[in-house]
């Protein structure tokens, strides 16, 4: 197999594995729109990275984290309804990113690859980001799993029982931001949320505990990556969207199976 295909497979599998449990939280806490907003802001991160000549992966992580913090603080102050706020932030950040990139006539930026991902162009360095970042996220998740779960079930109850709710809320946002930043390479800004929520939604059909749903979501995401890459190799379709189509197919198939709660 060609080197670039091996790297694509490794990168895709790494991202899918970590997107599983985070995707489950995105589904449970109805954060899909929040994820979308962060993803859209990733493009702004690229522009900032080019402008200040810093590592693009790092710039995207920083941009997502800053936006997540901004969102949390604005949400707390209840300036406007959350979905309106997210809508404003998502499209402003995306447009700002597009406008900013247009200011660099000398730098050729492959917009398509950022918007829809370029799985086949994953470099050795990208793999380090995916596995390094993924490992950190996974460790934090394991360490704080019960807190995150208690917080998701009922905030007041969690607080009375001694869970540091504000910290956990922030932590979850930061984890999602990190995963989005590292997943961008695979499926691109516009499709990241799908990699988070579709496998998780599929996993719901066959899971009776939160842990099983998270693990199944990882597994289904990894299967989608394999299927998507295979299709891409076979029929020369774009890799990122092929992965998403595979995930959506699995979701549809799961709905043909009898429901098992």
């Amino acid at each position, binding site marked *: 197999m060609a080197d670039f295909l091996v790297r694509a497979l490794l990168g895709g599998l790494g991202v899918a594995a970590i997107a599983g449990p985070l995707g489950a939280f995105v589904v449970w806490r109805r954060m899909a729109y929040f994820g979308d907003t962060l993803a859209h802001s990733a493009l702004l991160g690229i522009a900032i990275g080019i402008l200040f000549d810093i590592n693009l992966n790092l710039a995207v992580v920083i941009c997502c984290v800053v936006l997540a913090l901004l969102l949390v603080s604005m949400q707390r102050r209840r300036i406007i309804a959350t979905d309106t706020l997210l809508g404003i932030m998502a499209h402003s950040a995306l447009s700002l990113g597009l406008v900013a990139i247009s200011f660099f006539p000398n730098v050729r930026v492959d917009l398509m690859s950022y918007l829809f991902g370029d799985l086949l162009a994953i470099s050795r360095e990208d793999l380090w980001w995916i596995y390094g970042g993924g490992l950190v996220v996974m460790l934090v998740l394991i360490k704080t799993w019960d807190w995150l779960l208690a917080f998701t*079930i009922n905030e007041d109850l969690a607080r009375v029982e001694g869970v540091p709710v504000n910290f956990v809320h922030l932590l979850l946002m930061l984890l999602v931001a990190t995963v989005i930043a590292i997943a961008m390479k695979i499926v691109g800004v516009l499709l990241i949320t799908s990699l988070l929520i579709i496998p998780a939604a599929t996993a719901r059909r066959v899971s009776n505990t939160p842990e099983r749903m998270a693990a199944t979501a990882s597994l289904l995401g990894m299967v989608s990556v394999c299927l998507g890459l295979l299709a891409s190799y076979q029929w020369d379709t774009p890799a990122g969207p092929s992965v998403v189509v595979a995930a959506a197919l699995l979701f549809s198939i799961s709905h043909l199976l009898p429901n098992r709660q």
Partner: protein
Amino acid sequence: MNTTPLISLDKLNLHLNNRHIIQDVSFTIEENQITTLIGPNGSGKSTLVRLLLGLQRPDSGTISNRSDLRIGYMPQKLHIEPTLPLTVERFMKLAAGSRRSEIEEALAQVRVGHLLKNPMQQLSGGESQRVMLARSLLRKPQLLVLDEPVQGVDVTGQIELYELISRIRDKYRCAVFMVSHDLHLVMASTDKVICLNHHICCSGHPEKVSNDPSFTALFGAKGTANLALYSHKHNHQHDTHGDVIVDQPCKDHDHG
């Protein structure tokens, strides 16, 4: 036995949206005592519970807990997203450091042991309240805080739940602070009643509160008549209320 109160609230005040929700509220919760908070809708009952639990900060006033106070809390309603697969067992396990045997014992205590493997979302109102009650027991609380524990439960179920709460108090020797709409149902199983309408209108022994003019003013004569009827049943036949009580049913039953 330690005689300092579990919690004492001193001159609490809170404004929300320019409304003076809580006005100069002071009281204490003593060990092993059942306190019931009653009041009309919008009188600040739930807000007071939030203050008591430290979920909301007062504008002024102080709340002091006895050191290392363990509180078991049962929220008014537990909405769990249908997308979150959660069995009763997993929900119980989430309470810090509980073993299988303890979980089973707590569930059996509130008579829902058979629900261990059921998804939380499929429980009825009463079952869900009992599971939450069992879960709060896992923390071996010194104080149980129950926000409208019988909400969404039919009347027979309500009486059962209140009896259960009394039994739990006796068995676990914990204090209980609960919010209720209906004094007539809780009267038998409560030691102290606090009647709230932003400020404390009256408080004390349930009999005393039900005869208090400010209580009558708040709940109207009809509400008090119900109470009188209830306490009458549980007192000696020749009560001072006797005349009123005997009269009323006769008016309704001309044929009798």
